[in-house]
């Protein structure tokens, strides 16, 4: 017993204390979401009343097309995730496996450009898309199509960088064997590499999805129409300014929006962690 205390008690204490820290805001937001819509504040840690008013409000109030917001977020994030991995994987493959002039320079440039404060390039993106709007409103400013294009462009650097890390970790022997058998690089890519890399691509796709789901500034700039907003923009506007009292529905909305992401994340955490370390630990 004494030995157990000495060896494990501190571990449990630290773990429990930190767990409380990480649960604290989540618990409060769940409490808030279960209040009746009239009362705003959480008076104590123990709920005295449980009501689903706030959730009902989300789905029935015309002020908050919550379902549409959710759908928009899903559509935008999955389009961006799938296309950017599709495009990025090819570039990553080339950076990792092919030999060509300027490869080193290209990789350094890619890395360097990532360090430019993207938030500040936004005004330039804005000007560009404003001009695109004059001739192609469907992919210009204010459209989801335009937002998707901008996301795709913006995610390219990170994704190529991340994917290159993964590709490096896939053994070369197989594609070298294919090369000896007379396969061209393009054949190797489609027939050998892609099937092999599918799990890895899925993880990057997922990270990209979460990243896009989380994006806020561009989405706010682009999506002015209430029905076209993403969930992050919708909910933020919901508690900003004169809506400060909408805390209850906001709490409910953010819980619902977070659940799918949290589930995906927790169920795939092993792969994601490998992904996070692949680009770095291996170098």
């Amino acid at each position, binding site marked *: 017993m004494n030995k157990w205390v000495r060896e494990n008690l501190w571990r449990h204490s*630290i773990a429990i204390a930190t767990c409380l820290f*990480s649960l604290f805001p989540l618990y409060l937001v769940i409490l808030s979401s279960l209040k009746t819509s009239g009362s705003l504040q959480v008076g104590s840690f123990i709920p005295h009343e449980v009501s689903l008013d706030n959730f009902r409000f989300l789905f029935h109030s015309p002020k908050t097309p919550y379902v549409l917001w959710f759908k928009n977020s899903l559509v935008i994030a999955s389009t961006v995730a799938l296309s950017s991995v599709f495009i990025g994987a*090819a570039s990553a493959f080339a950076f990792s496996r092919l030999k060509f002039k300027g490869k080193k320079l290209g990789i350094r440039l890619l890395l*360097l450009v990532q360090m430019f*404060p993207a938030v500040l390039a936004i005004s330039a993106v804005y000007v560009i898309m404003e001009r695109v709007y004059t001739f192609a409103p469907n992919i210009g400013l204010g459209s989801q199509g335009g937002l998707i294009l901008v996301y795709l462009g913006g995610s390219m650097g990170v994704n190529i960088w991340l994917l290159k890390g993964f590709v490096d970790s896939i053994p070369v022997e197989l594609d070298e064997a294919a090369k000896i058998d007379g396969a061209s690089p393009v054949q190797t890519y489609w027939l050998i590499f892609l099937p092999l890399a599918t799990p890895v691509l899925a993880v990057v796709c997922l990270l990209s999805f979460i990243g896009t789901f989380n994006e806020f500034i561009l989405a706010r700039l682009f999506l002015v129409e209430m029905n076209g907003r993403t969930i992050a923009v919708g909910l933020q506007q919901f508690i900003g300014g004169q809506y400060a009292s909408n805390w209850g529905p906001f709490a409910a909305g953010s819980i619902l929006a977070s659940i799918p992401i949290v589930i995906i994340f927790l169920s795939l955490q092993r792969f994601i962690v490998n992904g*996070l370390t692949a680009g770095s630990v291996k170098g």
Partner: protein
Amino acid sequence: MRGKFALIAKIVFLGFTTAILALLTESAFAQKQYVIGGFILVAALALNIVYLTSISVPFKFFLPGILFFIAFVIAPIFFTVQMSGFKYQTGNYIDKATALEQVISLGAQPDAQGTTFDITVGRNSSNEFAILVSDIANNKYFVSTPTQRVDVPAASATFNEYGVAIKAPNFNAMSADALAANDAYSKIRYKYEGDYYIAIESQNAGGVFRQELTYSAKTGVLTNIFTGATYVDNHRGNFAKVGDPTVLLSPGWRAPIWFENYSRLVTDQKVRTPLIRVFLWTFFFALFSVLSTFALGLILAMSLNRPIRGRRIYRSILILPYAMPSVMSILIWAGMFDSDFGAVNSILHTNIHWLQNPSLARSIVLLVNLWLGFPYFYLICSGSLQAIPNELLEAAAIDGANPRQVFRKITLPLLLQILSPLLIASFAFNFNNFNLIYLLTGGGPTQTLNGEIAGATDILISYTYKIAFGTNFQDFGLASAISVIIFLIVASISMYGLRRSKVMESFG
């Protein structure tokens, strides 16, 4: 068989893409968007050349990525860098030609009495825009176009209940809807007397004006024909009065001022003072965030580095903050610390203005960032701890090292070596952690009464955002200059770090 299918798919896909791009190019040129149209055209050509020939195999892999990268990453950065050399701010947004046009049109002055007339807008018999003017006080009526003025005898006109002429011979009034659909009529100067003309003020009213400023394209000088004052380009984006350069005509235009935006960062005290303060806080914020998240993550990883009971549950709970969409959790924290509605005040039964007090707000920013960031380092550290060979630790223990020595002399240095690129990346990320500041405190609290725009929790990036997109005054030139500086700082820190960790060598 398979090769044939792939070929057909490729051609269909390529043809489809080319068609779309060609359409886009055409409409872009039609709208005079030559740069963008040109880019799309080059993109279409490049796609066809690369995929239909075998000029370059690597390009078959790169091209789509590169095109996106150029359009939405390189081009905006290029634009930003370029703008940092310009005076580009509220009052100096447009190009010189448009600005000159506006200066001249603003150079119109109302006549001494500020005369206005009731008018009816329509077209004359030759289908030109014309206005039917009612000078009710003098019982005079006339139809006016830019070139001529035809008097209408009161007897031949029709009047509404206010005595305003609404119908006249050779004049067809237009409906309000027709006017709303085409506002070209409102930009025309209709003839009045001598130098004076009638300018449209609304659909029913026109004022008497005359042009005071005239522009000579040959000398580039604007002259006020009545006072004789002259104005010349001051090469800083405005026309300035000769003899008194502080008198400027507005609007101005974007003008190249080279490195002035950069030198202002050092010489202009109003720019320099908040910038230094913000920079120090940014640095502290980024450093503290990295160290605190790493420390907590490492402690947790060490504690849970053994198969103790409940480890899986702990782990799942601990990574919750990381799994949550961060926009949501930042907003949740912001709501919790709201002084009126926030849960923290109502649970503590206090009325503390958490986010209005500079020190409290800064502590909260650091706390929230710790909450957001520690799971990442917990995950990374547990992975890396497992990568440290057990034999090493056992050997040290056999040699008589106590656990603390093992940690300090072996585990920590090894971890730091493995993780230094990630620590540096995390520093760079937090240096530009815009979402956190923007959503949590908005950079505040800010002493707006003193005319400050930099708040206590503003980091460089959020401060720059305020300069560029502020509500009262926007200075895009200065903001661009600061972003270039931020870029240089972050890039050199990262490069230094990467070089030290020898990651770059693996590119060889």
